[in-house]
């Protein structure tokens, strides 16, 4: 007889229940570390460790949820179309800004990794660090890194950007709210975009679009950067 936790429904049920509980918690307490994804992941890991359930058993159900990342990426294209008109008059400055930010991100990860003598698998997993989680996971599959490590760091980066991004930019003299939106979307993807939406609908639109554009840009560039630095894919 197999245990209940080995059925796919266990992983699905655990994830959905904990996620909605974490979301309910967030609506009560507006504290950035109570980000639903962060809380959900932490609680599920704790649960699995406490009851000594292997990740492989959990993921028998978890993989069905992961599957929906594919159509969710396609849905980003629809989001892009919806928001596109709002920024059309500023499209070139916007694309240039996201392009510079995206390239700086890849360069920074690579250079710091080399300077600190990090193992190859770290560059392979982190080169897509600024990009929205589903796209970052796809990139890591191409660069042969560890997708779970990518997901963890990407979510952490998003929470960090959400918490400190706009304050940091104000501190160093950025006054344009739309520039703050673009920066949050480029550096801190969807979780940063959630902060940009709080600033206003227009910064929110810039942020969502920046997230999509940087996703495509990083997909195109990072495999070649990894190939160049590490020497193999």
């Amino acid at each position, binding site marked *: 007889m197999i245990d209940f936790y080995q059925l796919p429904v266990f992983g699905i049920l655990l994830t959905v229940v904990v996620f909605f509980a974490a979301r309910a918690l967030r609506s009560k307490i507006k504290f950035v570390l109570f980000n639903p994804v962060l809380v959900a992941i932490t609680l599920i890991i704790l649960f699995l460790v406490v009851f000594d359930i292997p990740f492989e058993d959990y993921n028998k159900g978890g993989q069905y949820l992961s599957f929906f990342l594919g159509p969710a990426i396609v849905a980003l294209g629809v989001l892009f179309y919806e928001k596109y008109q709002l920024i059309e008059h500023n499209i070139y400055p916007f694309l240039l800004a996201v392009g510079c930010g995206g390239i700086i991100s890849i360069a920074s990860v690579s250079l*710091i990794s080399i300077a600190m003598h990090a193992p190859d698998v770290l560059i392979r997993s982190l080169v897509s660090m600024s990009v929205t989680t589903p796209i970052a996971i796809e990139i890591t599959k191409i660069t042969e890194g560890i997708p779970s490590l990518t997901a963890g760091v990407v979510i952490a980066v998003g929470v960090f950007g959400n918490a400190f991004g706009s304050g940091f930019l104000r501190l160093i003299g950025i006054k344009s709210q739309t520039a703050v939106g673009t920066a949050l979307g*480029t550096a801190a993807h969807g979780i940063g975009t959630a902060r940009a939406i709080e600033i206003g609908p227009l910064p929110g639109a810039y942020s969502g679009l920046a997230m999509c554009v940087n996703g495509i840009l990083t997909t195109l560039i990072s495999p070649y950067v990894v190939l160049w630095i590490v020497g193999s894919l």
Partner: protein
Amino acid sequence: MSPLRSRLQMLKAFLWIFLFLGIGELIRYVSDVPIPGNILGMILIFSALKLKLIQLKDVKPASDQLLKYMVLFFVPYGVGLMSYFDFISAYWMILSVIAVVTTLLTLYITAFVQQKLEKHD
């Protein structure tokens, strides 16, 4: 709109999304483009909307739902971190430096370029 009608439109919208996902994966499968199929699907659905091959209302019911729950879909990958505790405890310092420095640098450069060049009207 009757509930049944809106359900059918939701179903149709999901079929459109999966059609574009399928086309993207197919292109990826038969050619050497170095882009994942789902990202090709994203570019294709944007192009189709822009060229008015499909209408926003055809796909919006499904895309709104998918985006609303996108964060739920990547929770299992995050949970996968539990298999890498040893790796993280060995490299947490490098991981933190890379994440913090890169994020602040990217924020600054992006905001700086956009602020310098954008038009206000």
